[in-house]
């Protein structure tokens, strides 16, 4: 199982039955594959549908039915088309149960930076700032390090996405919950020790006992 699959499988466990979930493009979008259909979860694509389904069969693609990345998708039975006003009304209004987003950095306060690297990459924030401001739970799904450098840092050096701390950080090495007193290490990846997680993490981790290994 590679790092991405570990992350996606573990995040999928956080998705409660019947909830409304937004998955960011890239790694977060993999989560959908590991949420059983019978859990009755509705995926929102912020570009305009509640009830996003998998890729359509070859030849059945509809140019008017895509996800936020522009890829062809299907709509599940009971799906609803929504315009951007409704889509972000739902997001900012607290109607979205969970958003799963990628991250460039998360810091000891639980604050996320995921929309720009000044001077290098200025893609724009898209819906990220609204998602972090408005979703009931914000889960960051990202690899633990980038080019060997920790992404969980003492304090974000990149521009913040929001002043609101995220709810949970899931990487291939760990599940971490930001709280008022810092980052709590809850689970380690398969075969990973708490010490190894801390070694790959710039921010200090709080090891309050009962640290489990992820069950995937």
């Amino acid at each position, binding site marked *: 199982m590679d790092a991405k699959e570990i992350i996606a499988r573990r995040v999928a466990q956080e998705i409660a039955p019947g909830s409304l979930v937004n998955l960011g493009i890239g790694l977060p979008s993999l989560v959908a594959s590991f949420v059983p259909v019978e859990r009755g979860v509705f995926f929102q*694509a*912020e*570009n*305009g*549908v509640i009830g996003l389904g998998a890729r359509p069969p070859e030849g059945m693609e*509809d*140019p*008017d*039915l*895509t*996800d*936020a*990345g*522009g890829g062809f998708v299907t*709509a599940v039975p009971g799906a609803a*088309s*929504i*315009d*951007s*006003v409704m889509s*972000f009304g739902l*997001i*900012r209004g607290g109607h979205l149960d969970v958003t799963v987003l990628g991250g460039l950095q998360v810091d000891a306060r639980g604050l996320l930076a995921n929309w720009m690297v000044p001077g290098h*990459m*200025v*893609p*724009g*924030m*898209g*819906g*990220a*700032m*609204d998602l972090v*401001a*408005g979703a009931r739970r914000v889960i960051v799904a990202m690899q633990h390090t980038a080019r060997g450098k920790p992404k969980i840092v003492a304090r974000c050096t990149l*521009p*913040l*996405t*929001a*002043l609101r701390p995220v709810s949970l950080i899931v990487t291939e090495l760990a599940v971490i919950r930001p709280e008022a007193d810092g980052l709590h290490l809850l689970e380690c990846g398969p075969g990973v020790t708490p010490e190894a997680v801390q070694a790959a993490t710039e921010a200090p981790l709080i090891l309050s006992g009962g640290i489990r290994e992820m069950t995937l």
Partner: protein
Amino acid sequence: MKTAITAAQAAALVPDGAVVLIGGFMAVGSPHRLIDALVARGARDLTIIANDTAMPGKGIGKLITARAARRVIASHIGLNPETQAQMIAGALEVELVPQGTLVERIRAAGVGLGGVLTPTGVGTLVAEGKQVLTLEGRDYLLEMPLKADVALIAAHEADYLGNLNYSLTAHNFNPVMALAATTTIAEPGQIVPVGVIPPDAVKTPGVLVDHILERPH
């Protein structure tokens, strides 16, 4: 009853220097024939307000490649390296706006509200230079309405009166943009008789639509 206009006639209604709302999301639900006509006309110095600038060669990306824009107000330009290159070269001014804020700023202009009070962006770069109001213990940014000279929108169907409906994820910014411009030009996939779109299915009332692009040949 509205009169259908040609793409060239529509492009002539968008003068150089105009502020233009353009519907679509990554080129899905964009008014492609109207965009092509603007490129063909050689439009210049536009301010384009849209969710994104799509990719080179697709949707709004064609206007970027044609250097028709002087300014872009969008939530995302990450999939169009030409937008980034023109921005870095100083040829294009880009204002990045959170997507939910962008749609509410357009809506505010369209429905006569003085501004938007949103929690999105508080404490980030987006908040720079903006007024913050603390209301019932929470901070909100005051964001200003975005009004345009022309809205170019795509629809699924239009009837002869300009009533519009939209399909699946091709709704996106189109319905709200129909409210926020002095002149609204709709590019429908089909034009149908009055009554084919029943009252409950109309998402943009024809009274908001000034011109309908003629059917594709």
